[in-house]
């Protein structure tokens, strides 16, 4: 009966689009609203669907991009005394659910025709009043969230483009390219791999050899003024996007035998086979205009 009650509550919330954790949030009057802004760039150029970017990777390839989305979870703001507080995400029934936010830079046009018209470049939530001088977050999903039955999940966990059923999980990040040498496509699908099943009729793995969750730490970021930049040129700087290693998925799909992942994982600070984890260099804080110029951000 407990199971049915839980199902009932979850289903009701899903049906009504009501916040999943209304009581866990800071009350509207307490603390302050945060809008953590993101931008996707190729070097210093703003990313756009349909635009061709030259001089990419070790071969100076030319690319267009057909998908550009990723999940962020576990957002923490760092106070000036060094302590961290979680950003309680606004439960908007669309882009954010529980501790997970989807960022989406494809707009469904031109080269991104298989995407969605809606885009998202911000994570919204509340924190207690205070002075915040840094940000940290993960690119990826918490283990339990990643391995639930996907057809029963609320937005933004119900997008089939980000399903990864073969690996019993989700794609954490998908950036799909077409390059000079790989006009049919060269895909970056980041997700957990090497998963071992639980015994019995469950589809939930017990563990995955490589969770492939990217840890991003941005000290000194002014959350009211600065923008988190994802630089695709930096991600691809050491990669050869004009070739695909024989007998492996097209581009990098996170498998332990897929050597196309080596230069990307290094940039993302992820361990790969014998290479240890390091520090990511793809995400950086970009100084924004002074707060007064942004308008009332409370």
């Amino acid at each position: 009966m407990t199971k049915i009650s839980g199902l009932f509550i979850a289903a009701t919330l899903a049906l009504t689009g009501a916040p999943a954790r209304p009581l866990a949030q800071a009350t509207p009057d307490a603390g302050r609203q945060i809008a953590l802004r993101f931008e996707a760039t190729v070097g210093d150029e703003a990313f756009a669907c349909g635009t061709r970017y030259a001089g990419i990777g070790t071969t100076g390839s030319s690319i267009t991009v057909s998908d550009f989305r990723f999940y962020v979870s576990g957002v923490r703001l760092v106070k000036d005394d060094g302590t961290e507080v979680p950003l309680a995400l606004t439960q908007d029934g669309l882009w954010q659910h529980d501790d997970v936010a989807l960022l989406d830079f494809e707009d469904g046009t031109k080269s991104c025709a298989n995407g969605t018209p809606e885009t998202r470049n911000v994570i919204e939530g509340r924190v207690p009043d205070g002075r915040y001088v840094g940000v940290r977050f993960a690119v990826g999903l918490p283990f339990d969230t990643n391995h639930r039955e996907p057809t029963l999940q609320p937005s933004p966990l119900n997008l089939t483009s980000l399903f990864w059923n073969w690996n019993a999980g989700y794609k954490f990040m998908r950036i799909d390219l077409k390059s000079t040498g790989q006009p049919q496509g060269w895909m970056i699908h980041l997700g957990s791999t090497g998963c071992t099943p639980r015994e019995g009729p469950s589809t939930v793995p017990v563990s995955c050899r490589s969770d492939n969750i990217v840890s991003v730490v941005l000290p000194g970021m002014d959350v009211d003024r600065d923008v988190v930049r994802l630089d695709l040129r930096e991600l691809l700087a050491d990669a050869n996007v004009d070739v695909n290693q024989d007998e492996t998925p097209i581009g990098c799909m996170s498998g332990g035998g897929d050597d196309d992942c080596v230069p990307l994982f290094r940039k993302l600070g992820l361990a790969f086979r014998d290479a240890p984890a390091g520090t990511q260099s793809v995400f950086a804080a970009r100084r924004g205009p002074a707060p007064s110029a942004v308008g009332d951000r409370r």
Partner: protein
Amino acid sequence: VTRRTLGGWVTAIAGVVWLCAAVALAGQGPTYAWDLPPGFPQPKVPADNPMTPEKVELGRHLFYDTRLSVDGTFACANCHKQSHAFADEKPRGVGVTGEMHPRGSMSLANVAYSPVLTWANPTVRRLEAQALVPMFGEEPVELGLSGKEALLIRRLKDEGRYAALFPAAFPGEFDPFTLANITRAIASFERTLISGRSPYDRYRYGADRNAISDAAKRGETLFFSEQTECFHCHGGFNFTETVDYAGKGFAQVEFHNTGLYNIDGKGAYPRPNTGVHAVTEDPADMGRFKAPTLRNIAVTAPYMHDGSIATLDDVLSHYAAGGRTIATGPHAGVGARNPLKSSFVKGFSLTPDERRDLIAFLESLTDQVFLTDRRFSDPWPSHTSAR
């Protein structure tokens, strides 16, 4: 009415709907009439997707509906054909974009009894979850629906038959046109694809002494002998040890390396078909694949996960040699010396007569009733079908 009040009403109504559903679940409802062959156990069904005739009928329509592919050209049935025991005559599947799957389509005969789905993915345990792989998978693209879920739902809502079939299958749901319900219905139909009325079944379980030839009877003896060891992996009522059913207690899940390849002398199979290893990345899982059911095996050629063996006779040669030797090319290697090979694939010798007898036995597992059963056939009238 304020938005908040409206939300409250919606919540309340949803609550009533779900309470009814909970009561229905707890009350079990009428038992599904399986029409099982003699001696067959009752399939295990997930508690959250009980069998109903209405769900099965909806699932049958979806299984044969080409709206389930991005360009409206492919259905599940394109690669799972009733005439081939819901397998395919191609060595490997080909999807809507023309991309070839690394592996061949498996027979769906008796898939209700399989506790693990596909050739070598130990994480895929439910048919409901498996259906998502061909629909939304991109490596390879099969039905090509990734990112097209809204289009799919819209297409289904536009079909007159579904206006009745979906609410009948999922009564009481405000909007039954959901991805979860699509997979539940397809899984329910697939669970009805039970094959157990072959000549061999009539001979063995139906006391019809003349249902199979003398050659097939001698072949049966060979099959279940320590000489060939076939039955170790292909034993039981479904001719595979990977089996589960209601009341069984322990689901059996087995994967075996049969020495089909050995390209580096250390047991490697050619990528991407490295078996369970491709999912778990555990080196010990290299080349481990599920032993498929041998029911209807004579109509599911070509054989092995990659369709690399054309005939049953050649399959016997592979096992008789204790593994396949490939002399030249990128896959060259002596499979018999694969260090990860199952100890039951030890090789054997057969006289030409014995070989014919074994094949006669395997052919006696072909269930013509199953291959022609109208309950499993395309329900769409040919002139209106989406196909």
